[in-house]
């Protein structure tokens, strides 16, 4: 035991001489540290000292509790250290503060953070082809893409999860939000510490581990606008033994879908958002009502269905049940010959309004946010064995399962119907009519004739060539929309993550100055297994059922020798694509369930991602400097990644109508790494200077070896000021997607600049008129150089056409390398105890070279043909038909290539102001904090073979506002807290060079302005001003339970609405862009603890 003499004397000295104030005042000192609200158990332990210490002669207990002690692992360094010191820029988001803003979902919390940039992929993204597949929620720091943000749980890499294609990013919804203690965001390249992908930074979710007994928590959220209720419940149980502990936690989440109809801002349709020269917002389309006299609401023209394209002058005819303005039973022409909206019945109103056939506004059952159910279970434990190595085997298991169901609305279906298909409307031999005569009937319609005369002065009969006469059966193209065709998707994903390891001391190393070395050896195995199912219409079955493969166009007959998959012919039933049920409500269905069940199939994917990491790490003190111990760490890591993303035939071969083929991905790779880190506590004069150096060598199976390193310096010229600087290199190895993605093919409408443009076709001769051709000479040369004569290739001005595009992994891409640096300070006001003020700012710059990009087809075409030097590297990705006259584009290859340089620069700001205000003699702890980010630059740079730089800047544009900020005001009184949080998503606008010109309906650029002389001109709304939302909550903490009640978006601030041509949107609501689209949400958090012994 202690030498009692020491204790006695010290106690006597202090007590006799000074009569100190005992415990409460000691606690007072902690309060002055502005951490007034401790978890209840802390206060308990602190007080625990009293009853035992009071009557004793010892003050030793005082000393013990005055120490603030811990060994912490700081994200950004693997060294064990005693104090929380981070030289690297680190933002910590505590789950508690997030909960006070109504957020428990890891994805929401990370995506809302000011350090997240770019478009944030969440559950509003469906109906898109996403790198990580449907239902995956990714982290994207600085907008550099999810592949360049490393996500970890408890300091260990989180493996990818997803489905379809080749998902390579972790999905944030495998993180059980209610079990998270805090999220560390390391905002610095960190490959030298953590390996590949930590280019833009690291997100590390740290799970709660420190619990004893049972804790139950519920966190329901109920939207003010109804649908979209979200229920999260969790239970966790832990037990501590003398030498170990074990704990289990589980969380269940049930999130209802929110449809477009469920929110006032999406319950309508996609509208024009244009602004006129007078600054007035305009929605009303002017073109169709003005020119065609169509009845029109305030929606814009979307995808039209409920129509049939016929191969005569009429083009599309529209379903008008019981009426025809020509000779098509139940169908009518909409408009012809310029500005004539056909009013065949002479009632003064155009017979067909496009709005009556528009999917836009009729797909309100589509999800704004998908429906999701998740379950997460984690278990962990450790036990320290007897012995001086303190060998501590441990394990951690995380199981997550999620089911996401999405409904993306309605798509068009437009299959070719062969001429003699019995149902074909233009098959007079079947149930149809002769469409030549049917159209002639329109020319002969007296009401129409009058309209024609009004415009052209003569009746259409004046132009005898207009008359078709009898043309017999002709093929048609019904354009309909079938409910549930390709728009429903169910994704089910399971991820298992096992960590097993052993830690311990290495007493054998205790020689000389080495005395505290410890090691950790672990194996982490992750397996995610996901399925995706999507019902849709099989194009091959549809074609068989329409008679496409029959010489007589007989449904279900294949006498042309077409080779069909085995599951096509069985069960074939003739399909009537002209049934009223497909037309009557725009979004329709087949006439019979038999038809539907035959043509519908499911597109299924099974995707498995596996990752195994074996890691060894040792850390300890190298030697002591007068200013402190020099600690170091070394480690090696072996990583194995494997993907098996297997499509069924429907997905692999693109068998759905109009749906892309996805070959999935199969591949694996091995990475070996060795790394080291050392931290030197130095002195600069009398002031502490901390230097941290780290380096890592990576040997990648495919691209070879790479070194990364970093140096970080922190200097305290005064106690109150920390200056820090970091510089490091990071890298990103080509991932399994870039290496092993099998062909994904699809069709895109692409613009071909090598075809004679419509402007350059002589209206009289219909041939090429070079005088009208405005194209640059270098463009024409580029076309010639690549096998097209741009003065001959004439597609009647239809220069945008459907081209197959294909993408796939390649093994010849190299790693991306990046340099990052940061300069920052943090300062804490030392002058007064009346308030705490901490101010910090950190400038960062990340430059990535040779980014692996997947150029868009449009970009490839542009780069190839618009290269003034004719040296584009992309031209050989464009294949054309072997047709000397009209060599249309046949295939554009989109695969990966190392090319661009990215640069992002910005400043992160942190301010915390805290004080205790006395109101009615009672103390209220007030804390105000601001986190802000200023984007200085986001740009890509490509230097072409001629050394000419081509820079594209994105900052201040969509997704990259100059300012983002989060601020919070918390007032604590006893066990109560009121919390107000606000979030700013700053102004964004279109690139100054790409701002639309003022225009009007006459030139087609704008749809809501008529233009001079009667009206001004318009352009799309391309700017969104500063966007604020606010959250309010109140909290009460009892010893064994606490409750928080509040409202997110308390003012029910709607999202800004923009023109749908300017951003990815849902009925003008921009998605993934930092705006709230759910409106006010009431939330309740209730946690109860039941203690063990």
């Amino acid at each position, binding site marked *: *035991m202690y030498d*009692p*003499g*020491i204790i*006695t004397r010290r106690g*006597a*000295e*202090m007590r*006799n*001489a*000074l*009569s*100190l*104030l005992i415990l*409460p*005042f000691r*606690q*007072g*000192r902690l309060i*002055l*540290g502005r951490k007034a609200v*401790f978890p209840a158990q*802390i206060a308990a*332990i*602190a*007080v*625990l000292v009293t*009853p*035992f210490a009071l*009557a*004793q002669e010892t003050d030793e207990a005082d000393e013990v509790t005055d120490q*603030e002690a*811990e*060994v*912490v692992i*700081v994200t950004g360094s693997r060294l064990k250290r*005693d*104090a*929380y010191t981070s030289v690297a820029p*680190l933002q*910590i988001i505590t789950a508690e503060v997030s909960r006070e803003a109504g957020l428990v979902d890891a994805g929401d919390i990370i995506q809302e953070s000011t350090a997240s940039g770019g478009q944030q992929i969440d559950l509003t993204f469906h109906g898109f082809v996403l790198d990580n597949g449907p239902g995956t929620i990714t982290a994207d720091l600085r907008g550099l893409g999810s592949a360049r943000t490393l996500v970890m749980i408890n*300091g260990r890499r989180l493996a990818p999860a997803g489905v379809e294609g080749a998902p390579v990013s972790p999905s944030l919804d495998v993180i059980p939000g209610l079990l998270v*203690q*805090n999220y560390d965001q390391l905002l610095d390249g960190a490959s030298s510490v953590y390996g590949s992908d930590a280019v833009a930074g690291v997100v590390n979710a*740290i799970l709660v*581990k*420190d619990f*004893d007994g049972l804790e139950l928590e519920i966190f329901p959220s109920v939207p003010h606008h109804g649908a979209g209720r979200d229920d999260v419940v969790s239970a966790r149980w832990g037990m*501590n033994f003398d*030498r*170990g502990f074990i704990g289990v936690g589980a969380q269940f989440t049930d999130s209802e879908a929110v449809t477009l109809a469920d929110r006032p801002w999406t319950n309508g349709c996609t509208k024009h958002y244009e602004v006129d020269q007078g600054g007035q917002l305009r929605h009303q389309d002017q073109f169709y009502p003005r020119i065609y006299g169509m009845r029109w609401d305030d929606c814009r023209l979307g995808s039209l269905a409920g129509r049939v394209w016929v191969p005569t002058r009429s083009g599309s005819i529209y379903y008008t049940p019981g009426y025809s303005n020509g000779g098509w039973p139940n169908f009518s022409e909409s408009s012809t010959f310029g500005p004539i909206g056909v009013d065949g019945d002479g009632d003064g109103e155009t017979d067909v309004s496009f709005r009556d056939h528009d999917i836009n506004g009729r797909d309100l059952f589509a999800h704004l946010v998908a429906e999701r159910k998740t379950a997460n279970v984690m278990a962990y434990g450790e036990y*320290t064995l*007897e012995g001086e190595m303190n060998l501590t085997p441990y394990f951690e298991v995380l199981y997550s399962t999620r089911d996401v169901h999405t409904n993306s609305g309605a798509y068009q279906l437009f299959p070719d119907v062969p001429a003699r298909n019995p149902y074909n409307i233009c098959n007079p031999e079947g149930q149809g009519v002769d469409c030549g005569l049917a159209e002639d009937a329109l020319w002969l319609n007296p009401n129409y004739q009058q309209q024609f005369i009004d415009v052209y002065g003569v009746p259409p009969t004046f132009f005898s060539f207009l008359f078709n006469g009898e043309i017999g059966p002709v093929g048609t193209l019904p354009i309909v929309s079938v409910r549930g065709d390709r728009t429903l998707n169910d994704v089910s994903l399971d991820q298992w993550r096992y960590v097993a390891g052993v830690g311990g001391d290495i007493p054998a190393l205790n020689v000389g100055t080495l005395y505290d070395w410890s090691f950790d050896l672990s194996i982490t195995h992750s397996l995610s297994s996901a399925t995706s199912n999507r019902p849709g219409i099989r194009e091959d079955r549809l074609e068989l059922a329409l008679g496409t493969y029959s010489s007589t166009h007989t449904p279900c007959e294949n006498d042309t020798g077409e080779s069909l998959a085995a599951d096509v012919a069985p069960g074939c039933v003739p399909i009537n694509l002209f049934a009223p049920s497909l037309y009557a409500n725009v979004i329709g269905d087949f006439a019979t369930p038999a038809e539907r069940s035959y043509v519908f199939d499911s597109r299924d994917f099974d995707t498995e991602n596996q990752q195994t990491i074996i890691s060894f790490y040792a850390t300890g003190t190298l030697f002591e400097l007068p200013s402190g111990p020099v600690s170091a760490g070394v480690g090696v890591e072996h990583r194995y990644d494997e993907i098996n993303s297997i499509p069924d035939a429907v997905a692999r071969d693109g068998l759905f109508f109009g749906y892309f083929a996805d070959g999935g991905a199969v591949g694996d790779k091995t990475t070996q790494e060795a790394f080291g880190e050392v931290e030197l506590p130095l002195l600069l004069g009398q002031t502490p200077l901390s230097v941290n150096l780290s380096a890592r060598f990576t040997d990648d199976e495919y691209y070879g070896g790479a070194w990364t390193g970093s140096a970080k310096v*922190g200097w305290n010229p005064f106690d*109150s000021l920390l200056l820090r600087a970091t510089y490091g290199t990071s890298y990103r190895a080509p991932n399994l997607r870039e290496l092993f993605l099998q062909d994904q093919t699809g069709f895109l409408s692409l613009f071909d600049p090598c075809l004679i443009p419509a402007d350059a076709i002589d209206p009289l001769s219909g041939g090429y008129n070079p005088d009208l051709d405005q194209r640059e000479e270098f463009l024409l040369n580029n076309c010639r150089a690549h096998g097209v004569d741009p003065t001959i290739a004439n597609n009647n001005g239809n220069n945008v056409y459907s081209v197959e595009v294909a993408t796939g992994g390649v093994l010849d891409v190299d790693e991306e390398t990046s340099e990052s640096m940061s300069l920052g300070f943090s300062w804490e006001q030392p002058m007064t*105890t009346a308030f705490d003020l901490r101010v910090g700012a950190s400038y960062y710059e990340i430059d990535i070279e040779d980014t692996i990009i997947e150029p868009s087809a449009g970009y490839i075409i542009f780069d190839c043909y618009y290269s003034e030097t004719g040296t584009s590297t992309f031209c050989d990705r464009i294949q054309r038909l072997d047709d000397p006259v009209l060599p249309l584009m046949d295939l554009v290859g989109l695969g990966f290539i190392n090319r661009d340089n990215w640069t992002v620069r910005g400043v992160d700001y942190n301010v915390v102001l805290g004080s*205790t205000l*006395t109101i009615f003699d009672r*103390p209220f702890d007030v804390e105000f904090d601001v986190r802000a980010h200023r984007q200085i630059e986001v740009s890509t740079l490509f230097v072409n073979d001629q050394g000419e730089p081509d820079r594209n800047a994105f900052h201040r544009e969509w997704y990259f506002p100059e300012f983002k900020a989060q601020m919070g005001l918390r007032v604590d009184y006893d066990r109560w807290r009121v919390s107000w949080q606000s979030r700013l998503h700053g102004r964004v606008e279109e690139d100054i060079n790409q701002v639309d010109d003022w225009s009007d309906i006459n030139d087609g650029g704008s749809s809501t302005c008529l233009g001079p002389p009667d009206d001004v001109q318009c352009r799309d709304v391309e700017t969104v001003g500063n966007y604020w939302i606010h959250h309010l909550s109140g909290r009460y903490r009892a010893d064994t339970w606490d409750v928080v009640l509040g409202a997110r978006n308390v003012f029910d601030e709607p999202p800004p609405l923009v023109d749908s041509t300017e951003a990815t949107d849902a009925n003008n609501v921009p998605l993934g862009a930092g705006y709230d689209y759910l409106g006010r949400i009431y939330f309740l958090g209730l946690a109860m603890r039941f203690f*063990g012994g």
Partner: protein
Amino acid sequence: MVVGRKHLLARAASLAFCVSAFAADERTDAPSEPSKTSEPYPLEHWAMRAVISNVAVSPDGNHLALMKIASKDGDPIIEIYDAADLTKEPFRLDADPMEIAGFYWASDRDILFTLRQQVRDKIEGFNQGVYEFRLAVLDVDAKKMRSFAGERATVVNILPSEPNKVIVAVQEGGDDGPAARVRAAYRPLAYYEFDLRRGSRKLIIRGKLALGQVGFDGEGNPWLARGFDEGSREYILYHRKRGASGWTEVHRHHEDSFESFGVVGFDVDNPDDLYVVANNGHDTLGLWSFNVDTRELTALYRRSDVDVWNVFEHSNSWTHPDTVTGLSYGKDRFHREFFDDAEGATYAQLEGVVPHAHRVTITSRSRDGSTLTVSNSGPRDPGTYYLLKDGRIQTVGSQQPLFKSEDLADVEYITYKARDGRTIPAYLTVPHGEPPFPLAVMPHGGPFVPEVVGFDKWAQLLANQGYLVLQPQYRGSRNYGLEFYQAAFVEGGQGGFKMQDDKDDGALHLVKEGLTSRDRIAMFGWSYGGYAALVAASRTPQIYQCVVAGAAVSDPNMQVNYYRFAMRGSQREEQLRMWDDSVSPLDEVEKVNVPMLIVHGSVDQRVPPDHAKKYLKLLDEHDKTYKYLELEGADHFYNTLFYNHQLDFFTAMTDFLANDCGPEGL
């Protein structure tokens, strides 16, 4: 008065040494007659911090180590002497840049140090804590020191039977990251056995919140643990029998209870009988035997007048670890009651030979029992260390070598009646000379603390200057039972009311006794005592000529607000009942009617300088006469008042009392 006492078997008296072994020439005993003509000591003498401390012999008795402040501003160094010849030049050691906070012998050749270094001015910031703590071990033979166990570790047991091993408590963080740092600060301790030779460690037990603090016996067996049950709001005591592996809950104590229940040891012969200092339904704390199986308390010793403080263990901690040999309490002075006759005899012998024996303590003893270090302190001895070896006693040194016993003042223990009839004990430090003396009433801080006056530097300083010093144990003081303590707040906070009357009544009692005069009274206090001084300044009718208020609480509400919501249980009750309706000096400034000297440390963390600032502002507004002294860089406590602080403070105070206190000074 003694209501219960169980005699433990007296051990064989083999350890008692023979008094005749003392060589007379080594005795520094001197006549304690006051030298009535002596001049007061220069204030510089009083400002000196204790010169030597922490004197201890190695277990083999061959070395003697002590901590010494070599210069008035210096950090302590360790000196290690050859115990056989103290005149030989010692081995000296400092721990620059860290400061040695204390040490103890772990084995014949290993000295363990606690080191600390102030690394920050404020609690929060880059490195969070104000101090960094380290453990270090010095190999005396190799003369090599190295730190071990990392930061934030505390030695809890030196395992007397295992020379190379000690048990260290470590606050561990784990992987919980920076946001957990507040939690982690209160993280339960993990206990390791460290091998000082190999530098390795073995986990023994890792605590948890509900079972956090573990006690180990001298063989390293965990036997006691403490925890807290948040559901029932009870402190829980767990016991582990020797050889068992689990814990058994043996006692619960509700946090609202004002009673105490503290396990202070166990009976080495019947380890299932614990020594407990507890009220057990009584007003004062007694020593009880608590059987873990029956959970019954048996009274061992209890007094109806004052609390039992603690037990003490055998002076030879190497051969008799955990052996409780007696108990201590304080009343007129510090007292021991022995259960072990041999130990009692040893102390009795020591008290016979140590000059001015007052509070004699064996601070260390060699394994063979023959070499001891002994300390004494009391009114006539500021603290002296002796080495007893080979039957010879010699003086090692004094904490305040500049003071002669004959110049120091005696302390009397008195009682008097307060105006409501309550009996108030008090200590009276009586200066040399003839009464009536000018009187300084010096209430202790706290207020809820016990005070037993032995050598009290401030009282002695004032007595040396000719002042009579009264240290009243006003109601609210601990040591006199629950009723006496709770009388300060059960019927409303008595701060400025009855607690103030208790002090004034003491002064008036001394006037009546003829020891002082009605017009020569001042009050001086620190912390709560400073608060009392502020209250006194505005009282009417006024009995004081002036007040000196140090580190005074001027705004009790502000003070309580610092920790109002962090308190729990009985402590919360105590503080809020006390302070929510006691007098606030800030409200009384207008009535201030005597000169004031106000002193405050500029970095006082416990009673922040805002108290002084607010009060001074009001004094200015009301045109009151005062002097203010700010002690630059001083915190609230004794060990942060360095030489210059003390010198400045003493100079200002003596000057103020002599010249500004009353018409012609006090």
